[in-house]
């Protein structure tokens, strides 16, 4: 099964290639766009450079809004090996750094750097590596990475990673297959810039030292084949291999199968079978980066489709909005009933969400089909199990079974049928007589599985952290108990050694506590504006807010009591809290009848600090009002205190009828008792 190098080489030299199963032959339609030279476009008004345009990690943005940048200037940077930087596609001003509609099927916004061109198109300083063969290879790899090159064929895998594999490379395959209908950007690039592509291949070949370099081009592009043959003739190690036209021959796995009969093992990489594959566009960009030091700031994009009056290939700056390209290609809106623009080809491309979607490094085609050209898919009919999809599948999957299981959300079964080996080439849906959007079902299933796995990972992490926290709490509890025990022992010893002194000390402590308590109740009771202690105010605000909530759900609140039990609370604060709680109860009750006015009129803010506290309290009160239904308990207990004004609070007027004092005291006592009960409960629990 696993063919050896020599055997493969003989067959490639003889032009007797292998085949991959399945595949389809849609109409090529390349002649729409491949007859004219690659065109240059005027600068668009704005450029939207998406920060992450490849598979991997995004870099950190290195520029600021309003900053002036030069063409080719680094915009992002990262030390992560899977990060690829982006560069300013032209000189101009950074207008904004914010999310912008992305070149992704979802169209969901991604972080994007918007640049307003200044029209000068002035390059930054460039550092070519023309003597790269004499430098260590790592320098060249670095140059490729810092030029921001990622696979330009479709997936956008960072090129520098593929250029420094950890295994031996037998074949370096240059993919100029371009099997998707309509697209002709690689075709034109090979015809017009074969020489530079060869330079790029030279660089790669220097880095990878493959035994053989194969340039694979579909046989429907004779001019490109000719051009590449001419430029590669002096390199013995290079061979241009025309391959039969069949979709999806340009898929990485399929092309490897056609050329070498080897199959990339599941979850493996091409290098596992001794192959590295690069797109011709990538080679062109590599040559740019190494020989001239130019980063990847533009690429060839095919503008095609019968709804365009001037279809052709153009050099588009990365970040060019679709709108600009459509205008340049003379988009005829009336030829489409529903405006629809496809980024990529008709088989694997996606319909973009808006005309503000920018060109990114993987954008090879903008397809704007007329209505009759690519008619909308009809209604889904029942599957008649004809098996046409299985015959078309290049991965030898059973699309039908995948479809049943994906549709029924039997995700594990879909995975049994190797859902993740589907390359989403669309051949199955292309041939389906029942017009079932098969690939769409697979995508949904795949994303669901991905999300489930993600959730599972998160759940595992959460469980781990939860368990760790539990252990920590137990440990802390033990430590605390140990400390208490030791302290008690020490006290005992001290007491036994000097009884009188200890007694005095206790008495002193008690007195101190009492004094503090008195002061606190004072403060709380006629809390006057003079109270300026920041600490106390915050504490009071805290207590008040908490109390309010407690009032709302007196009986069930265990969390707060736990807190108080755990932290020995300052006596003073406790009292303040109790008082405030009582007040809060009243407020809550009041809210039922009279929502905002009461609290507003009740306060006379003294300073800024108080204002904040008041605002917080007000917010709480509002929430309380919303929770009215649960507040009825509080209502019942505080009815008799309705008359007591807001006077006990920090921000209230310091007048108060004496007759109410008792009631307040009563409330304090009540609150205390409650807390004691909660404490007792807590102790009980602890004992358990």
């Amino acid at each position: 099964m696993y063919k050896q190098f020599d055997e493969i080489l003989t067959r490639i030299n003889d032009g007797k290639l292998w085949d991959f199963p399945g595949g389809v032959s849609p109409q090529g339609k390349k002649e729409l766009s491949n007859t004219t030279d690659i065109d240059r476009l005027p600068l668009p008004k704005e450029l939207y450079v998406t920060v992450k345009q490849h598979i991997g990690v995004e870099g950190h943005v290195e520029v600021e809004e309003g900053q002036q940048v030069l063409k080719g200037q680094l915009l992002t940077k990262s030390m992560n090996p899977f990060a690829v930087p982006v560069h300013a596609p032209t000189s101009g001003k950074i207008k904004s750094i914010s999310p912008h509609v992305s070149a992704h099927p979802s169209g969901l916004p991604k972080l994007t750097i918007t640049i307003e061109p200044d029209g000068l198109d002035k390059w930054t300083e460039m550092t070519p590596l023309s003597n790269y063969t004499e430098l260590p290879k790592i320098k060249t790899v670095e140059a490729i990475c810092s030029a921001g090159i990622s696979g330009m064929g479709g997936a956008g895998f960072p090129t520098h990673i593929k250029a420094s594999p950890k295994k031996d490379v037998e074949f370096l395959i240059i993919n100029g297959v371009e099997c998707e209908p309509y697209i002709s950007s690689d075709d034109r690039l090979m015809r017009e810039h074969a020489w530079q592509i060869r330079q790029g291949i030279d660089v790669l070949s220097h880095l990878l030292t493959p035994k053989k370099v194969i340039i694979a081009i579909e046989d429907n592009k004779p001019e490109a084949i000719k051009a590449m043959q001419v430029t590669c003739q002096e390199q013995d190690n290079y061979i241009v291999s025309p391959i039969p036209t069949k979709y999806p021959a340009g898929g990485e796995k399929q092309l490897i199968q056609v050329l070498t009969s080897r199959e990339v093992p599941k979850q493996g990489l091409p290098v596992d079978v001794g192959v590295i594959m690069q797109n011709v566009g990538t080679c062109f960009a590599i040559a740019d980066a190494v020989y001239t030091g130019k980063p990847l700031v533009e690429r060839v994009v095919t503008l095609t489709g019968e709804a365009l009056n001037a279809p052709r290939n153009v050099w588009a700056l990365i970040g060019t909005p679709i709108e600009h390209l459509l205008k340049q290609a003379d988009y005829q809106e009336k030829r489409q009933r529903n405006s629809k623009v496809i980024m990529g080809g008709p088989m694997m491309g996606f319909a973009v969400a808006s005309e503000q979607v920018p060109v990114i490094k993987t954008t090879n085609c903008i397809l704007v089909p007329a209505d009759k050209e690519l008619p909308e898919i009809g209604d889904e009919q029942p599957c008649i199990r004809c098996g046409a999809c299985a015959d078309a599948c290049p991965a030898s999957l059973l699309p039908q079974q995948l479809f049943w299981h994906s549709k029924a959300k039997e995700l594990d079964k879909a995975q049994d049928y190797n859902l993740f080996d589907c390359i989403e080439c669309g051949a199955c849906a292309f041939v389906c007589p029942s017009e079932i959007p098969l690939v769409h079902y697979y995508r949904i299933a795949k994303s669901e599985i991905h999300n489930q796995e993600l959730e599972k990972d998160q759940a595992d992490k959460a469980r781990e952290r939860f368990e760790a926290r539990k252990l920590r709490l137990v440990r802390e509890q033990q430590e605390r108990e140990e400390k208490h025990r030791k302290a008690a022992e020490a006290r005992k010893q001290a007491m036994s050694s000097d009884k009188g002194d200890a007694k005095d000390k206790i008495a002193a402590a008690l007195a101190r506590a009492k004094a503090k308590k008195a002061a606190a109740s004072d403060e709380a009771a006629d809390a006057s504006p003079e109270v300026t202690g920041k600490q106390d105010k915050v504490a009071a605000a805290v207590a008040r807010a908490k109390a309010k909530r407690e009032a709302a759900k007196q009986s069930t609140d265990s969390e707060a009591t736990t807190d108080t039990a755990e932290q020995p609370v300052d006596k003073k604060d406790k009292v303040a809290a109790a008082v405030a709680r009582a007040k809060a109860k009243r407020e809550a009750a009041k809210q039922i009848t009279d929502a905002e006015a009461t609290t507003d009129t009740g306060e006379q803010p003294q300073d800024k600090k108080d204002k904040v506290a008041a605002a917080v309290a007000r917010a709480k009160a509002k929430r309380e009002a919303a929770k009215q239904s649960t507040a009825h308990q509080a209502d019942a207990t505080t009815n008799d205190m309705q008359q007591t004004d807001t006077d006990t609070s920090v921000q209230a007027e310091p007048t108060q009828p004496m007759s109410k004092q008792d009631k307040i005291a009563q409330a304090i006592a009540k609150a205390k008792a409650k807390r004691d009960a909660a404490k007792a409960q807590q102790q009980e629990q602890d004992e358990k």
Partner: protein
Amino acid sequence: MTIFWALVALSVLALIFGLILGYAAIRFKVESDPLVEQIDEILPQTQCGQCGYPGCRPYADAIANGDDINKCPPGGDATIKKLADLMGVEAKPLDAAHGEEDVKKVAFIREDECIGCTKCIQACPVDAILGAAKQMHTVLSEECTGCDLCVEPCPVDCIDMVPVADTPASWRWQLDNIPIKQV
């Protein structure tokens, strides 16, 4: 006499089959996680306590001991279905007494309002809030399970539960304008 031989034959057969079965039971024994582990695997591990138990593991214990499987709002119907499959019972709708299924959320602290009380840190079941006393706190949104437990203790009410936004990576291909209509 015939009866005797019949009985002997039957007994011998029974013995042989018994031995075979006994051997098979040992030889082909299926090692599986204890039930509680399996249930705990299914639960979403938000540790939110909405089920009435202090965490997912205790609820898993409770389910194993016969409690209802429909008390987990964060897990929602999907979790109930999986639990039903595992326990071999009918899936029932979520018990509304414990809350309703909601989109996934994470806690977010409005940092300029935070007074640094550490109450939310103590409340967080998965240690996903970072901060120290009198210092501003912040939520590690990657670790946050969206359990809601930090919202209540916050004295200044500066914690919001923010729905997790869809990103291109988590997007589930909801192209609403592809009406897939079954004929």
